[in-house]
């Protein structure tokens, strides 16, 4: 093998439950992917094995390549698994006296979070998961602060000391403190924190002590309790793991601190205070990748779509930014973390297809075969038809090239299953039944995609649609048809797009804080100025936190680019909108008016102008501060354009392909062998080991110099 000449710059790590993937990008934008079996006891082992696997493709080694590397980003499922299997640190929880049951009661919605619609209705299926902290490790202390931040009942110090002594005496390894309305007035919580620290010192115990106001000063106590508990319960153990991985990378010659993908769409250092937000990071990788490509190539509005075996994930990038969800749920817990907003539908290539026994109607999912593909894989043990079976019947997939041929599929098995289970009962020919399934799935996905765009007040015409994920490109034409997207892009590296996205993420901290600024519609200049000043005060506090995080990672304040934001609503409403501030600092009545104008404009777009209610006045409910520093990102490949005709060696032959009532002979191409500039008119099927890109009749695609396919309806 030829020795690799370009410097290896960026490493993306995706540590899953079974496999650890590494993704290296060199200075020219070329990349390699490595795989190794995960090693939960010491994740660094799998990481190095996987890196060796990848770098071998370039004829180099960890020792040779690591010293040149400039950055590495980690994303993994270890923390999530720790939470789901309830194997976190044993922690004690201090709440208001009289509310000791609250963390355990959770919220009733936690009994059906993550359920498909029909099970959400179906009461007898609902259940609660085990609480993160058992009742015997929960203590109450007497105090109350009201929703305006005023003290109703002063804190009783002695109760705090007693609670801390009892909990530490029980052997807990961390203390979590969450009191009512502490986001508004943290004085009691901080006092509890300090008293706990004193008691721990007296008892000679070195434990993590976490107060919610220091981490998540955001309204909604059940979200805040869960999130703060996760910080001690799950994130602290992860910090140890990340520390070890970072050290191991340094042992092999790197000169930087490991960064971790976080829910807000940026990466943070493993030393970050709020590490719980790295709980879920995998699924948002693709969104970040799309944003990064958009930034580079000038796409401001992007609709991201990702189909895997079990789900269809969608997200919007508008004006170059993600939408952030403030109080999402993960692992069946309500949380108060900023999360890149994604809509997920339980429909993927592995979704089961059945006729409803009661109505005879065709039904997709919500359950899926996952990695077992479908009846077409004889070893799957499956008897129920999946979407993939229909693909095979229709000639969309190559039975000999699934996962690069690792899994051999049997078209005849799929054909018989579709005939027996769907076609005969519906009184349709087998091909019609199978293509009906695909049409219905595409149609449903198209509706979801369109409603996501229109719910934000936009038209598809203003958006470029990115399609990726293992099964994404099979359906791209189907779920984008007639929506009128400005452009439709399928990266030739679609299957590795999430890993690419992680490697491309900004080094970014984001802090949120609840605020209660409320102004009547006829508020005078003094009130408006005071409101602007209050918001600025919030921004200033958050700025300090952001700067501090970067300081921990060795950056100076001048390196940090600050991006303020706020949440606003009409007075009395319960839902706010997150707005990127049109001004860098606020301090005058004029500034306030600009904030209001930006809000009104966005509100009218999201909910229709008739829903605007300026006569109620305005409330700011939250201050947001984001800070970014420059980091090295993976380069986007640039290839010379080779002309419209594909090279002969890319042509793999033809396959029978069925769509809209007729069979075609579709030309087959090998994705990796196609060259920049090539243009193909459907029906063609472009195959690669990890994905298949279907371009039916009536569509055309061309591969640009960045190895992005553009799909166009003719």
């Amino acid at each position, binding site marked *: 093998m030829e020795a690799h000449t370009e410097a290896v710059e960026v490493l993306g790590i995706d540590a899953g439950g079974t496999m650890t993937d590494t993704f290296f990008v060199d200075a020219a934008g070329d990349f390699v992917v490595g795989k190794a079996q995960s090693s939960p006891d010491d994740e660094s082992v799998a990481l190095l094995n996987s890196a060796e696997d990848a770098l071998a493709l370039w004829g180099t080694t960890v020792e040779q390549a690591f010293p040149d590397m400039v950055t590495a980003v980690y994303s993994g499922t270890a923390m999530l698994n720790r939470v789901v299997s309830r194997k976190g640190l044993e922690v004690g929880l201090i709440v*208001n*006296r*009289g*509310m000791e*049951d609250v963390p*355990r*009661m959770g*919220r*009733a*919605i936690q*009994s059906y979070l993550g359920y498909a619609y*029909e099970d*959400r*209705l*179906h*009461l*007898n299926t*609902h*259940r*609660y998961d085990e609480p993160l902290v058992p*009742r*015997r490790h929960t203590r*109450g202390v*007497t105090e*109350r602060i*009201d929703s305006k931040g005023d003290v*109703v*009942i*002063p804190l009783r110090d002695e109760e705090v000391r007693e609670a801390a002594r009892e909990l530490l005496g029980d052997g807990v390894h961390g203390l979590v403190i969450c009191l*009512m*309305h502490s986001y508004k007035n943290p004085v009691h919580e901080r006092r509890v924190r300090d008293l706990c620290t004193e008691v721990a010192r007296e008892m000679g115990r070195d434990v993590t002590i976490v107060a919610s106001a220091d981490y998540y000063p955001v*309204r*909604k*106590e059940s979200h805040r309790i869960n999130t703060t508990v996760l910080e001690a319960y799950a994130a602290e153990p992860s910090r140890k793991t990340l520390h070890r991985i970072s050290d191991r990378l340094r042992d092999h010659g790197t000169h930087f601190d490991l960064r971790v993908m976080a829910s807000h769409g940026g990466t943070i250092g493993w030393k970050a205070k709020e590490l719980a937000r790295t709980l879920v990071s995998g699924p948002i990788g693709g969104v970040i990748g799309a944003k990064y490509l958009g930034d580079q190539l000038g796409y401001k509005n992007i609709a991201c779509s990702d189909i895997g075996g079990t789900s269809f994930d969608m997200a919007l990038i508008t004006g170059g930014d993600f939408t952030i969800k403030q109080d999402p749920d993960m692992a069946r817990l309500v949380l108060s973390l900023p999360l890149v907003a994604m809509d997920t539908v339980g429909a993927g290539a592995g979704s089961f297809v059945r006729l*409803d026994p*009661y*109505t*005879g*109607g*065709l039904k997709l999912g919500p359950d899926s075969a996952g990695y077992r593909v479908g009846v077409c894989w004889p070893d799957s043990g499956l008897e129920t038809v999946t979407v993939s079976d229909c693909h095979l019947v229709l000639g969309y997939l190559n039975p000999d090239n699934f996962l690069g041929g690792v899994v051999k599929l049997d078209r005849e098995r799929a054909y018989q299953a579709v005939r027996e289970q769907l076609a005969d009962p*519906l*009184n*349709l020919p087998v091909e019609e039944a199978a293509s*009906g399934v695909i*049409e*219905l799935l595409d*149609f*449903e996905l198209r*509706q979801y995609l369109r*409603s996501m765009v229109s*719910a934000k007040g936009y038209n598809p015409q203003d958006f470029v649609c990115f399609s990726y994920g293992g099964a994404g490109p099979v359906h791209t034409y189907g779920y984008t048809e007639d929506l009128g997207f400005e452009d439709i892009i399928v990266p030739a590296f679609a299957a590795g797009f999430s890993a690419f996205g992680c490697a491309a993420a900004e080094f970014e901290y984001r802090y949120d804080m609840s605020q209660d600024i409320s102004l009547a519609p006829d508020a005078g200049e003094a009130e408006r100025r005071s409101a602007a000043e209050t918001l600025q005060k919030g921004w200033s506090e958050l700025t300090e936190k952001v700067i501090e995080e970067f300081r921990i990672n060795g950056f100076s304040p001048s390196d940090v680019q600050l991006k303020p934001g706020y949440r606003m609503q009409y007075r*009395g*409403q*319960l*839902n706010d909108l997150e707005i990127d501030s049109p001004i860098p600092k606020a301090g005058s009545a004029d500034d306030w008016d600009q904030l209001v104008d930006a809000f009104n404009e966005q509100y009218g777009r999201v*909910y*229709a102008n*008739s*829903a605007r*209610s300026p006569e109620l006045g305005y409330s700011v409910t939250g201050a947001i501060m984001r800070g970014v520093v420059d980091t090295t990102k993976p380069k986007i490949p640039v290839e010379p354009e080779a002309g419209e005709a594909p090279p002969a060696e890319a042509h793999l032959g033809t396959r029978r392909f069925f769509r809209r009532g007729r069979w075609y002979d579709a030309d087959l191409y090998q994705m990796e062998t196609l060259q920049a500039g090539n243009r193909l008119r459907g029906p063609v099927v472009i195959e690669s080991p990890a994905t298949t890109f279907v371009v039916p009749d009536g569509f055309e695609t061309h591969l640009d110099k960045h190895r992005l396919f553009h799909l166009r309806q003719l």
Partner: protein
Amino acid sequence: MSAVMDMGGRDGLTWGGASLKSHRDEVLARTRETGHYNGFTSLALKEREPIRYEKIFSRLRGGVVDARETAKRIAASPIVEQEGELCFTLYNAAGDCVVTSTGIIIHVGTMGAAIKYMIENDWEGNPGIEPGDIFTNNDCSIGNVHPCDIASIVPIFHEGVLVGWVGGVTHVIDTGSVAPGSMSTGQVQRFGDGYQVTCRKTGTNDRLHKDWLHESQRSVRATSFWVLDERTRVAGCHMIRDMVEELIREEGIDAWEEFAYEVVEDGRRGLQNRIKSLTIPGRTRQVAFVDVPYEHEDVHLPSMFAKTNSIMHAPSTVEIHKDGTWTLDFDGASRWGWHTFNANQVAFTSGIWVMMTQTLVPTERVNDGAYYGTTFRLPKGTWMNPDDRRTGHSYAWHFLVSGWSALWRGLSRNYFGRGYLEEVNAGNANTSNWLQGGGFNQDGELHAVNSFESAAEGTGACAVKDGLDHAAAIWNPEGDMGDMEIWELAEPLVYLGRSIKTNSGGYGKYRGGCGFETLRMVHNAGDWTMYFMGNGYMVSDWGLMGGYPAATGYRFEAHDTGLRERIDKGLSLPLGGDTDPDHPDYENHLGPNARVKRDQQGMTTEDCFENTDLYLNYLRGGPGFGDPLERAPAGIEADLNGGYLLPRYAEKVYGAVIHQDGDGQWRVDAEATQRRREEIRQERIARARPTREWMREERERIIAHDASTQVRQMFACSFGLSERFLEEFRAFWELPEDWKLVEEDLGVPTYGARPEHRMDLGELPDVRKVILVEE
């Protein structure tokens, strides 16, 4: 095409100029003649183009759900935004539901009934129905459940022809009734129930009329909730109308017309098939009761004839027919009363699906087809089908929940017989207490509150597992208690506790889910009032197959608490749960002058509360399943350590032999428990008597009319409405043919009792009632 469009020649809004009324009549006639909705003996579109049919369904359903999700963010009311108390539904031109959103789907039928009322009463002629019109309805006498559910209804036109309707409903926090809070007590007639609007045209050209905006806002207390709720409803309706218009552009008007009727028949068949596969043909009978304790001094009424204690009665029969249709018969139910717990027939015919989608038909496919697959028998004059236009309805749910819980129990016996043990549910909690009130809040604004913590009650036990604790309401499987920090924004009441309510779930081999309780202290209010509403003296559900009913309700309130002083001095405070009401503890932490009301009066009228006064909001548990002596010791241990069960009941009811270990954790001695349970079984045998012997004694009591006045009055009401029920009663107890029990003999107020002194809505001039049940 088909029956739908082929009716030319007359002046009206539907195809060929037919009036809506003649259109609906023809749909109903074809349904009657064939037993299939609109005469559809086959599902032509679905059979011809199954994929297209599913696509249309998916598009409509998705659009309706999306509209709800988007629109609800406009609202200010936590019960709309946080509790999801809103629903959007799409109807065909005849007013039958095509698809509905998630949410409180009881309103599938209530809005449908309003549309049908407009159709029957020629709204086409006057006030006219035009594109861009908005109609508003919350009239309980034509089908609304209670006045606080306000519906906005918008017609959908295609080239001048009315081709459908869309309705949106929200539960508003105040409707301007006698007391604040939207489901008030105290009034005993419609005239105090709150602002009621009868299918009024409140907007044209998509804009609300100014007179409506002015009048409606001054008719209620909490105007910002009112205004933003209305914007929520109208915005959602318009989104759905746009979606349907677009579908018609793309799929064609013929496809819409065919689909909009065929889907109802499809829904009817879906129900039929579910019944066939999950149940056994035959009859189950069950009964429900609930107390109306109005004699108490804390219930202030305008009318002495209502000032009496009574019991509401709902015997019911579920009869499953061999063809998979079924009949729900409430023969024997008691008469409507001078209270606010009466219900319109539509609250039943429509409301029942909010429960059935949790068990029999958990599917997005429920529409009016389910109504057409069901025969309802609700005798005229009963509390669920009043024959007098004066009746109050503001808290119809008081007894609806118990009546339906009984149906669930009946169905569960049927599931059990068929072997679907996982589907068994011993019934559901009485979804109370309702914390309501109003006055001037912490922001100095005129305000009303209605806490929807009641959306998370204990659920009934299953035949394979315990009920779920603090989890759902019979009217909302996705119920939730919400965050305290949000409720404190909406209410000038700080929480001094939120706790699992010990012992509130019914005991059993599998226990009912426990409810919870919150202790609230009035804080920073101006003038402020509150009241209680829930069952108190009677359990309103039953256990199943040996399981106990859930605990009943009670109230705790405290005034002149001295808490300000106790807080300042650092003295002990009442915090957390009222864990053992037999040995009350809150009272130990109040000042010397505290006035405490602690009793079973679960229902009161508006009373003043000062800052630092206390109010306990107790959300009920669910009933249990199976003999408690069969409960596994591990379950009892977990209940004791989790605070779900008081130790003395572990001993008394479960026969458990228990002790606390060194760490204070409860342990159950399994062997000793086994022995103790054997003793209890022997005690039971010793206490037991042959049924016939017991019945003979009871019969003597019945002949002697030996029962409390309330029980006698309840039965007398039922006998007065149903000769059949009386005959069945006589036959069961082998009573003489001349045995009778009549209200006039009981010395209770009989105002309104005589049929000749009642006036039905239909007796008003120019009113055609919509009747959807066998009466």
